């Protein structure tokens, strides 16, 4: 498997949303009401501090400390991943910020292009301030409590990680850290040591949650935090859809976001997890996402990656039970100075399991897009099927795209299908459309939307409309 060996250099012109704000000295507007400060850098003390503030049980503290050790002993995976990872300065990062400590800036300090994006995407006034980091809290507590009431009547538990592990350990402890063990990779270990925020959801047998549950409801500073931990357990025959993120660009002072998402779909259950990621261009977004699908269960990851400086994300499904089904639908857009390194992992561990991966990536300007896939079907299994399709669209000749599929199929009772294509939106195509009377911008928009169309329609309506608008924005001025 070929390795990427060059460093992605940080272009000078990348807008730094926190320009002028010295992160290491914490030169922000703080409330004076708090007492504790975890400081920068990651030590055992930081971990203990986090655990004590959350009033966690001993076993959980042990878990965190263990993870810390693993994190410190594991090297960066730069032998196969981009060397840009070496630019993460672990010592300068704040690993925990309590309520009210979240840095704020004034509306004037928010860069113009971010303001313009809000305008173009039609983001409501109130939300803009929150997203731009001007306010620490968004007043939708009402919306959240509403949803919480409705689903709790069905026996659904919908809480943040701290609350869930404290109030319902008997439900969550069983699967917590089992789908993604601490030592899975360096960043999973990091998350396991310092996680905070995120959603823990349990759906009882047979319950089909009608409304998609959104991270957006869980609005407080921590949920847009750096080290979210999500665990969703769907008991037999139940169904749920969970959505996180939004199309609007998210401001962050922190340069490292490392989330972990674990999904468990028991017999006959269905989980659909939708993510729209649009972190600001200074963020390293390194996420570990995996689900385990039991007999006749189904897990579907729908992923859209537009922002961040570097995203490394390979949603995976372990097809543990007979006739389980896993699917990854992914759209990635890499613009100047961005690297979207995404893919999927499908591990077949039972007969008659099927997996489907459809990945579409768009590379613009100096953007770089990488697809890494892993499909594993061992010899003793029968009747398994995989379909992988990865298509890349290049918007000008400087773009780069790499595809590294690794398909291991043994035994003649299994079938795989892999197709890959690379196409260009070339000057000629734009000229063809212009000759029909469309402006350059209209031409670009039509062809890019045409490329992602059938995938974009898999997103819930409100997202897919915003998505198209956002992509149009990103495309402006990208040819020539």
């Amino acid at each position, binding site marked *: 498997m070929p390795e990427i060996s060059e460093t992605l250099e940080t272009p000078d012109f990348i807008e730094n949303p926190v320009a002028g704000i010295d992160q290491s000295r914490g030169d922000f507007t703080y409330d004076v009401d708090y007492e504790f400060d975890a400081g920068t850098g990651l030590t055992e003390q930081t971990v203990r501090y986090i655990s004590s503030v959350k009033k966690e049980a001993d076993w959980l503290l042990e878990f965190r400390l263990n993870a810390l050790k693993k994190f410190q002993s594991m090297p960066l995976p730069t032998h196969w991943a981009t060397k840009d990872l070496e630019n993460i300065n672990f010592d300068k990062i704040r690993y925990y910020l309590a309520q009210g400590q979240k840095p704020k800036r004034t509306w004037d300090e928010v860069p113009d292009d971010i303001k313009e994006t809000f305008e173009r995407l039609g983001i409501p006034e109130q939300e803009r301030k929150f997203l731009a980091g001007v306010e620490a809290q968004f007043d939708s507590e009402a919306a959240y409590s509403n949803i919480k009431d409705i689903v709790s009547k069905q026996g659904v538990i919908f809480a943040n990680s701290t609350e869930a592990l404290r109030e319902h350990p008997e439900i969550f402890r069983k699967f917590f850290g089992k789908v993604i063990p601490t030592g899975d990779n360096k960043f999973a270990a990091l998350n396991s040591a310092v996680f905070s925020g995120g959603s823990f959801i349990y759906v009882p047998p047979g319950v089909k949650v009608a409304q998609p549950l959104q991270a957006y409801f869980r609005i407080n500073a921590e949920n847009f935090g750096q080290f979210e931990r999500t665990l969703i357990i769907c008991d037999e025959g139940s169904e749920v859809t969970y959505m996180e993120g939004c199309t609007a660009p998210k401001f962050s002072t922190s340069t490292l976001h490392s989330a972990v998402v674990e999904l468990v779909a028991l017999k006959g259950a269905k989980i659909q997890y939708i993510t729209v990621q649009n972190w600001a261009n200074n963020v390293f977004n390194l996420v570990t996402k995996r689900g385990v699908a039991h007999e006749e269960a189904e897990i579907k990851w729908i992923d859209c990656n537009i922002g961040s400086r570097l995203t490394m994300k390979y949603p995976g499904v372990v097809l543990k039970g007979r006739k389980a089904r896993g699917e990854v639908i992914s759209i990635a857009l890499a613009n100047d100075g961005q690297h979207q390194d995404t893919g999927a992992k499908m591990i077949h561990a039972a007969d008659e399991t099927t997996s489907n991966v459809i990945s579409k990536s768009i590379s613009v300007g100096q953007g770089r897009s990488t697809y890494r896939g892993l499909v594993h079907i061992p010899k003793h299994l029968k*009747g398994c*099927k995989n379909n992988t399709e990865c298509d890349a669209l290049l918007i000008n*000749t400087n773009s780069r795209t790499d595809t590294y599929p690794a398909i291991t199929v043994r035994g*003649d*009772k299994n*079938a*795989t*299908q*892999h*197709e*890959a*294509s*690379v*196409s*260009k939106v*070339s000057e*000629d195509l734009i000229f063809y459309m212009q000759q029909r009377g469309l402006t350059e911008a209209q031409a670009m928009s039509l062809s890019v939307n045409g490329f992602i169309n059938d995938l974009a329609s898999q997103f819930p309506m409100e997202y897919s409309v915003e998505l198209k608008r956002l992509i149009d924005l990103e495309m402006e001025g990208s040819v020539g």
Partner: protein
Amino acid sequence: MSALPNITLSTGLNSERFAMHLSQRAALPDWWLETKKTAWNQFNALPMPTRNDERWRFSNLKGLDLDGYVLPEEPAVHVPHLPDFEHAAEMTFSNRQVVDRSTLPAELAAKGVIFAPLTEALRDHGDLVRRYFQKYPANLGSEKFVALNTAFTATGAVLFVPKGVEIEKPIVVQHTLAGDHKSAFPHTLVILEDNAKATLVEYFVSASAQEAHLVSGVNDLHAGPGSQLTYVGVQNWSEKTLAFQTNSIAVERDARVLSVNLHLGGQQVRHESHSRMLAPGAHSDMCSLTVAHGKQEFDQRTLQTHAAPHTSSNLLYKNALINQAHTIFSGLIVVDPDAQKTDAYQSNRNLLLSEEASADSLPGLEIQANDVKCTHGATSATIDPEQLYYLKSRGIPAHQSYELLVFGFFESVLDKLIDQNLHDALGNFIQDKFKKL
């Protein structure tokens, strides 16, 4: 396999026989005899393929035994019946002689169309044949066997269609071989000038299923600027036949070629096909359908070469395998640095109908231009048990179910034949094979 040059075969196809073959043709043009001599020397100089030859990877090299075959001396008495449909003209070869031939319709002859057996064409249109014969030689690994063909070829059709002439109905050629351990070396030459249009259908059949045959056949297809050529080849040699088939397709500016090859017979068959897109607007559609059963081995090697901008090619090879059959597919698309805006597609689909069947698939792309669209895909799948059960539950017996599913699998290729008669004729051939299983 020995790598010594100067291999002569112990009986049949040896230097004595070659000398006799030449002397029988003394009346033909000198250049032709020289070409044959050169080819014979080349055949002896080239080694048999070895394990190290990448172009023969996965092949059963032991099966490439040329010993013991002779040229047939008498025309076959029995000529197998073949599906009949409306056609513009036909020609039948049996054991290296013309046994049947229809006259070309007067209006086509008046326009300058030539449809003649090789020997006659060499006599009456020698310059034309010389200009196009092996103009684009084979280079996918079978050079030795192509040389053998050039050396011994005596029969084959030459079709020439002049500028602007369109022949709506297909032209049909049949090659039959009869007699145990006989060999045949048919050579087909098709030349279409600017804006011409024609369809050629060729059948290759053994008179008896019990006879062992050796065949090395070659096609030279030339599509001139703006022309449209459809070529259909149906191979149904006996199941004890060792066959080599080499197709060369040259496509000029704005020309379109569709070739469909159906493979049913043979013990071990090596089929090579090379399409060259020579000028802007050229397009080649390469299709192949194979039903492999028993211990048959079908070795398919292809090459799509794009030498000019705005060219396209589309390859679709479908193999259905039963019992312990084996197929090999190795396809390469090569795009030259100046061939911008190339659109090339290659797909090999294998349907495995039994546990012991095996299909090797090596798709490949070599792209030097930077503004191209190329995709390749390979799949291997087994029959969906659900589908099979569904058919059985309607009272359809297993072997017929297989047949139905295989037809479904083959449909996308058969659909490319606009002529419904041709479509049906091929369908009948496939059905016949299933009946015999």
